[in-house]
């Protein structure tokens, strides 16, 4: 819960499960009909490792396993391999792009917030070659990898106030180049504000998440339609300390504002389940 503090020799092992079911199309901020009855299931199960090398430096590794399933009903002629239309499914799953980050904790000077600066890379190890049942590679936004090595940067701070822990974080991933197919994802910026109540047995909190994603580009620079936008989520969280060193929590980010480029599928909520184990050597 308090990642801003680095403990030398401590290994934090976490597992995270995220589920999102996108089925509500919107155009900008306006709800529109789902003409193809399209829906996308996104799940990601991630293993999180953080090791405190010194009291100032730690190393973080995030290893995601992703599954993306998109289904829709095609119209006649919408796909050459399925001329008369009907249900069409695209599915990709496997190891996602691994993220490696170095974290530096600035000296904590009470009563000022503790501050953590992080920098790293998102690797390009995940597959970007998933195909449909006709053997054709499908669009990049349904692949589990991006195909490019990109820098990631984060800055976070937290501050206790009475019994509450307030945190703020900015996280960004910047796309540097296109993948082998000429597709370049947009940049991402996350802004997170949260307040947590660290109880003895149970803990809980509320998080506000701002997400900005810029447009993707295809064929080395052409503007991609229906990608990018702005989202605001509010996420209540409830957790339990199963053991002294083992936490388990669930949070439900709920979309309170979504403004997307052109029309995109959205979901009104996500489910996130986390467990964290602290192991000190």
């Amino acid at each position: 819960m308090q990642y801003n503090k680095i403990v030398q020799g401590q290994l934090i092992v976490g597992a995270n499960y995220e589920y999102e079911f996108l089925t509500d199309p919107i155009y900008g901020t306006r709800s529109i009909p789902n003409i193809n009855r399209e829906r996308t299931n996104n799940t990601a199960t991630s293993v999180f490792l953080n090791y405190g090398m010194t009291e100032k430096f730690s190393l973080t590794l995030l290893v995601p396993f992703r599954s993306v399933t998109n289904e829709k009903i095609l119209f006649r002629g919408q796909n050459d391999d399925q001329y008369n239309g009907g249900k069409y499914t695209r599915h990709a799953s496997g190891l996602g792009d691994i993220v490696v980050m170095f974290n530096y904790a600035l000296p904590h000077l009470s009563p000022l917030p503790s501050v953590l600066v992080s920098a790293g890379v998102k690797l390009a190890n995940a597959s970007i070659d998933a195909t449909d049942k006709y053997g054709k590679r499908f669009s990049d936004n349904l692949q589990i990898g991006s195909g490019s090595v990109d820098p990631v940067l984060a800055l976070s701070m937290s501050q206790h106030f009475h019994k509450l822990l307030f945190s703020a974080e900015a996280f960004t991933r910047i796309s540097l180049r296109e993948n082998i197919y000429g597709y370049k994802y947009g940049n991402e910026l996350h802004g997170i504000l949260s307040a947590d109540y660290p109880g003895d047995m149970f803990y809980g909190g509320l998080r506000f998440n701002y997400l900005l994603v810029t447009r993707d580009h295809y064929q080395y620079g052409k503007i991609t339609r229906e990608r990018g936008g702005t989202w605001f989520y509010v996420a209540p969280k409830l957790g339990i300390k199963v053991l002294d060193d083992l936490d388990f929590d669930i949070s439900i980010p709920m979309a309170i504002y979504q403004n997307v480029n052109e029309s995109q599928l959205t979901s009104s909520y996500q489910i996130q389940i986390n467990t964290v184990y602290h192991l000190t050597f």
Partner: protein
Amino acid sequence: MKRKMTETTKIFYKLLQVMMMLAIVAGSTRCNLYVNSEAPTNYYEFTDFDILTLGKNISDMLMDPVQPYLYLADYGNNAVLRIDISGEMKVDRKLVLGSHPIALDITPSQNKLIVALNGESNLKVIDLATYTVVDEIPVSLVGLNDLVCATDAHLFVSAYTEANVVSLSLPGKQEQNEIIRSGELLASVDGNKIFVASKNIVQKYDLSSGNTTQEAWSAPFGFQAKINDFVLSPNGEQLFLCLADVDDHKNVRDVLAFSAADLTFTGKYEVKSAGMGVAVSKDGSRVFVAPTEADGAGVFVVEFDGATKLEKDYYLVAGNLKAKGIAIDQNDEYLYVAIDSPGDDDSFEPYNNNSFDLQRIKLH
């Protein structure tokens, strides 16, 4: 590990916090890395659909030239529906007529609707003022396909099973075999010409002398086609022909246009698949084509400029389109299309795989 802060450290931290906040704010507004203002060209407007749920197999569609009604031939339910389009669309009246109504036409005096029945050898006459059946006309043909009213007293009827059409003179209902080939029929505005689109040719016949004669003009199209729609522009100048090749759906990618005067080939309206239907504005300047196939983003009715024959606008529709399933209202304000929404086929309901609804589209 905590230690006493120096003034310099305090200032440093304060600055750092301010920079963090600025970074977040800048990122969310106008920082170069996060600018989200570039946009592709938007070719169509995404609006909510205005749909009247019918679930009918609509075989023909005709706009009343005077009253705010649209007539739909409900092939599966042996009926003709009158749709009130003056406000929210609704089924205003339903007349059960006989087996499988397949084609509709309105008399030039605009007071009678003639209905051809495919499942029996009869035409039904509906009075448009009262919307009641006022007459029945027996025909010797089996498997009626189309009809056209050249005048109030002179009808032409074609059938799938016959090589030539027959004409009917009213009110005596005398039937006469004609030299006109069977196919989709149209009559000129003055009622003196008949146009026929048959499987491989468009032909024109003259009625002005009292005897039917074939004119020298013809427009062959070189393969055995299925005729999806055959439309005369309201100004009477252009014929629009929607062909399909049942053996090769990639063969036909355009709607063809011919001069009504001499059947010269006057235009190709490319929609990348066979046309299902055409609607034309009163002055002929706007041509709306319903294609067979969807684009990657959906199914669109494509508007063409009647003069340049270039694509001008796109109207997203909610499902697959239907032959003869497009009409434009009297004021050129709205299009009406029969649509088959995805997801309602392949269920356990019997005979529901040809289930069309009516969508109204406001023209730009």
